[in-house]
C-alpha cells in the first residue's frame, strides 16, 4: 500500500516536471521577442541632458514601436555602473535624464559611454545598445551693435576647457510648431569655438517682449543632438488683435453690440408692453360696471 502511494507520487511529480520543462522550453524557442534598440545622447531645455531610447520590433511590414519595455541604463567605465532603469512609452520611446555625476565620471578627454541592456526581461531576448558622447558647453550671448542684434555662440569642451572649432551649428528662434532658422542653415565655429549671426530685426518677439534664440546641433557623432536656448529681449512686440474682446457682429451673445441690444429690446419692450396692457384691458372689460 505505502509502496503504491510512493509510486504514484513519483509518476505524478515526473509528469509535472516534464510538463513544466516542456512548456518553458516552448516559450523560449518560439515567443521570445528580440527588440531593436537605439540609443542617443540629447540635450534640450525641457529635459536637460538625457539619453533617448527607442525600442522597436520587427513587424510584417517594417517595424512597430515597442511599448512597456524595461531597460537598464549603465555607465561604462573601469567598472560598469547601473544608473537606473526606464520603461518605454506608447511610442516606444523612453527618456533617461542624466545627472551631474555621470559627467563627473567622464574620462580625461571628457568621453562618456552609456549602455542600455535588456536583462532578464520575461519574454524578451537579452540585448543592448550603447552610445559614446561628450558634453558640450554652449555659451549664448546677445549683443546689439549699431542697433543690429547679434547672437554669438561659444562652444567649449567643459572637461578640457578647449574651444570646439570647425563644428556646424544652426541658429534659430523658437516658434510654436517648428523653430525658425536665422541666417544660413549652418555656421561653422572658428578656432576660438565662436560663431555669430545677425538676428533680423523684424522677427516678432512674444507679447512679453522676449524672444527665445537657440543653437541646434543635429546628430553629432560626439556631442549628440543638442539644443541650447536663451531668452533675450529683442524684436518688435506684436499688437494683440482686440476684435475678439470687442462687441462685434461676430461676437458671442455676451458680446452683442450695444446698439443691437438697446434698440431692439426697446422696441420689443414697447410693443409687448402695449400688448400686455391690452390683454389687461380685456380683464377690465369683463369687470367694468358701465
Amino acid at each position: 500500500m505505502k509502496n503504491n502511494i510512493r509510486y504514484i507520487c513519483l509518476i505524478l511529480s515526473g509528469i509535472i516536471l516534464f510538463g513544466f520543462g516542456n512548456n518553458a522550453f516552448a516559450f523560449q524557442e518560439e515567443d521570445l521577442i528580440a527588440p531593436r534598440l537605439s540609443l542617443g545622447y540629447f540635450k534640450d531645455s525641457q529635459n536637460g541632458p538625457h539619453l533617448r531610447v527607442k525600442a522597436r520590433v520587427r513587424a510584417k511590414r517594417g517595424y512597430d514601436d515597442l511599448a512597456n519595455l524595461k531597460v537598464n541604463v549603465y555607465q561604462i567605465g573601469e567598472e560598469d555602473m547601473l544608473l537606473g532603469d526606464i520603461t518605454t512609452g506608447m511610442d516606444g520611446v523612453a527618456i533617461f535624464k542624466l545627472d551631474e555625476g555621470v559627467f563627473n565620471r567622464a574620462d580625461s578627454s571628457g568621453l562618456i559611454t552609456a549602455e542600455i541592456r535588456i536583462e532578464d526581461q520575461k519574454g524578451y531576448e537579452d540585448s543592448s545598445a550603447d552610445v559614446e558622447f561628450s558634453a558640450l558647453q554652449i555659451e549664448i550671448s546677445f549683443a546689439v551693435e549699431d542697433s543690429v542684434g547679434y547672437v554669438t555662440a561659444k562652444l567649449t569642451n567643459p572637461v578640457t576647457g578647449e574651444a570646439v572649432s570647425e563644428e556646424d551649428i544652426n541658429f534659430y528662434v523658437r516658434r510654436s510648431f517648428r523653430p525658425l532658422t536665422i541666417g544660413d542653415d549652418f555656421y561653422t565655429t572658428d578656432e576660438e569655438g565662436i560663431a555669430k549671426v545677425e538676428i533680423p530685426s523684424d522677427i516678432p518677439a512674444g507679447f512679453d517682449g522676449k524672444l527665445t534664440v537657440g543653437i541646434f546641433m543635429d546628430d553629432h557623432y560626439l556631442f549628440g543632438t543638442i539644443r541650447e536656448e536663451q531668452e533675450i529681449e529683442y524684436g518688435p512686440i506684436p499688437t494683440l488683435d482686440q476684435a475678439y474682446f470687442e462687441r462685434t457682429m461676430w461676437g458671442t451673445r455676451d458680446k452683442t453690440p450695444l446698439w443691437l441690444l438697446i434698440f431692439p429690446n426697446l422696441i420689443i419692450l414697447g410693443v409687448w408692453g402695449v400688448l400686455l396692457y391690452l390683454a389687461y384691458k380685456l380683464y377690465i372689460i369683463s369687470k367694468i360696471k358701465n
Partner: protein
Amino acid sequence: MTEEKIIADLEPRKFGKLGMIWTIVLVIISALGIYSYIKQFNNGLEVTGLRDYAFWGIYISNFVFFVAISLVGSLVTAILRLSGAKWTVPLTRISEIIAVASIVMAGLTIIVDMGRPDRIWHLFAYGRLQSPIMWDVIVITTYLVISVMLLYYPLLPDFAILKDKFTGSPFLKKWYGKLSLNWRGTPGQRKIHTNAIQVLSVMIIPVAFGIHTVTSWLFATTYRPGWDSTNFGAYFVSGAFVVGAGGVIAAMYLLRRAYKLEEYITDDLFDKMGKVLAMLCLLYLYFNINEYLVPAYKLKKEEEHHIFGMLFGHYAPIFWSAIIGGLILPILVVVTPRGRKPLPLFIISVIVVIAAWWKRFLIVTPTLLHPFMPMQGIPENWTEYHPSYDEWAITIGTLAMALLIITALVRFLPIIPIEEYIEHINEKKDEK
C-alpha cells in the same frame, strides 16, 4: 335687412355633408404629414431630398409662403380699414383667421426644417441678437399675438350676441357666454374696445412689414447670387400682399357658396377686392422687374448662371408659369370688370396662390444650386434637388393643417363680424 335676420344668417352653423368630407380629407392629409414627420424626427433630415448644396428646400419655401399669406391680416384689417375703406368689414374676420392659421403653421414649418427640433429651447436659452433668425423668432411671435388679439377683440360683441341668440348647441352657447367677458356694450367697455382695436390696427402694420422683411433678410443677408439683393424686403412684402389678397378672395368665394352669404359677401365686394388684387399685382410686378432686370443687365458671373437658369434653363418652366400665372394673367383678367365677377376672380385667385407657392420655391432652390465654389466630389444627385415623398407629405400636411385651423375657426366663429356689420348697414342707411 333686420338685425334678427343678420344674426340668424351669420351665426356659426353645423357643416353639411360636403363640409364633413372636406374636414375628413384635411384630417387624413394632416395625419399623413404627421406620420412622415415622426419618421423624419427619428431618422433625421436624411429622409428628405435635401443635401449639402440644396440644404434648404420646400420646407423653407413653404415657411416663406405661410409668412407671406399671413400678411393678409394686416392688409385687410389694418391698412384698408385705417384708410377708411369701410367695405372691408365683412372680410376682416376671415382675413384675421387666415393670418392666425398661417402664422401658426409658419412657426411649425420652421421647426420641421430644423435638424435638431429637440433643441428648440436653445433659441430662448442661448439666443443671439446678431442673427436674423432671432429677429424672425421675435417678430413672428409678436405678430402671432397681435393677430390673435385682433381676432379676439372684435369678437367680444359677437360672442355677447351669440350668448343670447345662438340657436345651436347649448354647450357652445355657454362657451360663447364665457368668451364674451361680460360684454354688455356699455360706454366704458366700448371706449376700451374701440381704442384697443385702433391701437392693434396701427401696431400690426409695422410688425407685418417686419415679419416679411426679416424673413427676406434670412436670404438677403448672405452673399449668394439671387439673394444678395437690397430689393428683397420690398419684393417679399409686395409679393405677400398679392398672395394674401388671393387667399382671402378664394376664401370669400368658398364661404359665400358654402353658407349662401350672397347678401353679405356681395359681387361688389369681389369687384373691389379684384381691383385691390390688380393694384397689388402691378406693384409686385414692378419689384419683380427690379429683381431680375438689374442683375440680368449687369450679368455678374455668378448671377449669370442663376438668372439664365431661371429665364431659359432648368427652372424656366416653373419660373414662367409662376410669372405668367401669378402676375401677368391676374393683371390682364382683373382689369376688365367681367374678370372681377366672383367665379373668374376665384379661379384667378387660386392660380395666384399656387403660383405664389412655386415662386417661393424659385427663391430658395436655384440659388443654393449655384454656389460660388464648384460642386465636386459629391454624389451627382446632390447637384439637383428633388423633394422626397416624406418631404412632400409633411409640406402638404402643413398646408392641410392650416386649412384645418381655418375650417375649425370658421365652424365655431361668426365668419362675418355680426355687430360691426349691423353698424355698417345702419351707417349706410343713414347716409341714404
